[in-house]
């Protein structure tokens, strides 16, 4: 019990240090991009957040398969942690994407393939979480949730492919002076992006593990309540159960 918070604190410190490094690189170290100016620094938030949202999908897929195979509750907890954190990251990806698109492209929303994909996945995993909220806890909920999580993950590459085709068919959404976004990502830009991605991944692990812990506590509370109700029952029926043992003939004829 005592060791666990220590690891969490160390991880938290690690996250904070990496984030500080990222912030220093993003705002002080990396040169300003020539075409877009300072707004391009949004890249170092937007892309890592999108990346972690994708990591969340993989996490959900792996945890769901593992749950269906082993029926071990810990995989279900992992899937919930991944889904909830993933939905948060996906929402941030969408919002940062929109706020970035407005000054650069002149519109809040473009049919950009990664944004479209994230939006649809966001809806699928919101539905996943809603399903969990509607369904009474138990094995059935864990199992059906794993199925939904898995179908969403299987759908991901198909959605992305479809969104790419769609973007190619409807390229007109992007207007304004900065409509090309092919700024290079090597040199300082690439390095900053790499560090930022690592930092956000570490942050994702921190947030997801906190959510996992919460889920575990919820299960613990349920188990304790069950134990208490059982205890109450046992007190009420002690005399009966001893009787039943004595009156049961050994195995019948």
């Amino acid at each position: 019990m005592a060791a666990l918070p220590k690891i969490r604190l160390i991880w938290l410190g690690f996250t904070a240090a990496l984030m500080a490094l990222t912030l220093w690189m993003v705002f002080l170290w990396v040169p300003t991009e020539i075409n877009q100016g300072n707004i391009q620094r949004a890249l170092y938030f937007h892309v890592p957040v999108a990346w972690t949202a994708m990591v969340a999908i993989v996490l959900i897929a792996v945890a769901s398969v593992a749950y269906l195979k082993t029926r071990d509750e810990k995989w279900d907890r992992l899937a919930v942690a991944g889904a909830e954190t993933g939905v948060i990251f996906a929402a941030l990806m969408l919002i940062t994407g929109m706020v970035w698109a407005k000054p650069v492209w002149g519109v809040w929303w473009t049919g950009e393939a990664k944004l479209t994909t994230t939006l649809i996945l966001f809806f699928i995993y919101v539905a996943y979480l809603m399903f969990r909220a509607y369904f009474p806890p138990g094995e059935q909920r864990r199992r059906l949730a794993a199925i939904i999580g898995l179908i969403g993950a299987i759908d991901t590459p198909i959605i992305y492919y479809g969104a790419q085709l769609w973007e190619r068919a409807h390229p007109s959404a992007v207007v304004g002076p900065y409509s090309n976004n092919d700024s290079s990502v090597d040199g300082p830009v690439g390095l900053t992006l790499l560090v930022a991605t690592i930092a956000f991944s570490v942050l994702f692990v921190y947030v997801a593990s906190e959510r996992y812990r919460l889920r575990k506590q919820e299960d613990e509370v349920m188990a304790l309540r069950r134990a208490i109700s059982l205890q109450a029952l046992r007190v009420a029926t002690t005399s009966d159960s001893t009787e039943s043992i004595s009156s049961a003939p050994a195995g019948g004829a």
Partner: protein
Amino acid sequence: MGASLATVWTLARKDLLLELRSKDIVLAIVVFALLVIAIFTFAIELTPSRARDVGPGVLWAAVAFAGVLGLNRSFAVEAEGDTLDGLMLTPVSRELIFFGKVLGNFIFITIAQVVIFPVFEALFNISVLQVETIVIALLASLGFAAVGTAFAAVSVRVRSREIMLPLLFLPTSVPLIMAAVESTSAVVDGGSWGDFSEWLQLAIAFDVIFMIASAVLFQFVLEE
């Protein structure tokens, strides 16, 4: 193999027979879809060029939304008399039960489209009754049936299944809806197979992947 196909057909025919008696599913799909299409004809001023632009989108949105209603019924029918338990007691493998349900739902959506398409063509004044669109419609119905059957079986056990099914089904089907809309648009604009081959591939990939994935996952859905 032959015996499996016969079992799948027996299951689907049972659903067709029930549908013939109750007319719940097809009627719901047709009426709802036509309603959506009719509302759009009032909501949008339909100049010929605008009808061509938005028509395919309206058509497929209507089919997808109406399809949800029908899919909701397909497992509600089984839940009513606990006949799902009856099916579970048979030695038929769960994949075959799934395929039987998919076949039934596919036939329902297809029959509904037989009514929806001509009415749509008349109201929007664009020609969608062509070989290309019929193939697209069949591919879309198959994909809707595959994903929809799996999700209908999942959501039939939830309190508010009428809410849950569309929330699960619609976002998952987005690639298929995109493919259907884009291909139909291409056909309406006078294109032929080559102009939307990528979208057709997407639809076929979606159908194949979800037919297999849902069949495999279905056994986990039905466990209790």
